[in-house]
């Protein structure tokens, strides 16, 4: 197996890793939403008009749905862009002086990397078009 063949698996590994991360947090927020309410920032409650519990549930649904789409390889680029922006806001809210904030920002930019790559050759839909995939 040459290195070129190995590199074709890179976006797949990145995609599945992010699936695991978002599925874990999304499902945890749906299973135990009360546990997460204390990390909802005040501005999110005042801006949205929802209570913290509802925000956590909506966040959980979004992350679970997005991770299923990523797992299947459906609209990878669009889903990744949404997740990137989503996590960028959350990581930015924690701030760059907070270890969790730095970690979230790192994950968000890993998601951006997936968005920039787009469809890999194992994605279901739409068909991959970029040059790196066709090798």
């Amino acid at each position, binding site marked *: 197996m040459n290195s070129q063949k190995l590199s074709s698996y890179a976006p797949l590994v990145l995609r599945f890793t992010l*699936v695991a991360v*978002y*599925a874990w947090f999304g499902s945890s*927020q749906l299973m135990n939403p009360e546990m997460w309410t204390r990390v909802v920032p005040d501005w999110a409650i005042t801006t949205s008009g929802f209570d913290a519990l509802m925000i956590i549930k909506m966040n959980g649904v979004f992350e679970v749905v997005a991770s299923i789409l990523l797992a299947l390889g459906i609209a990878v680029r669009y889903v990744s862009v949404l997740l990137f922006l989503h996590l960028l806001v959350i990581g930015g809210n924690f701030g760059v002086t907070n*270890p969790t904030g730095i970690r979230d920002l790192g994950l968000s930019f890993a998601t951006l990397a997936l968005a920039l790559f787009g469809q890999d050759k*194992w994605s279901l839909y739409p068909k991959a078009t970029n040059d790196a995939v066709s090798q």
Partner: protein
Amino acid sequence: MRGKSCSAVREIPSQTSSLSAAMALTTIHGSSIGQDQLQDRSRGNLLTDPNSPSSHTDRVAFLLLQVTNGIINIMKQNKIMFAILGLVVFGLAVWAASMREPMGAGPGGAGPMGNSSSTQSMASSSVQTSSTNGGISITIETPAR
């Protein structure tokens, strides 16, 4: 045209491997079915003689052949296989999340809505209260907030 020729080429190893699997089974059972006979039987004569001494082996071999062919056909659909793999990853992550104790560590750690590590360690510490009542020991674990 190119696609057709490729698929035709791909079918040869799959049939060979199916046949090999079936042959291995018949060998284990001590059957005297040769490769030519098995090929003939796989064309439709496999289950025609239920009174044959090797009919049970034939049935198992035929079933194995069908299952092997089915698996190989699914493997050819790589995208489907990897979509299933993605769903397996998703399922494992959900299972791992469900394994987490609802009370205790709190939403510490990495992730979209994660808490700071200092909060996590604070929330992890708990107060244990033990009492003995009529020989029954009761331990109450209260997570510190």
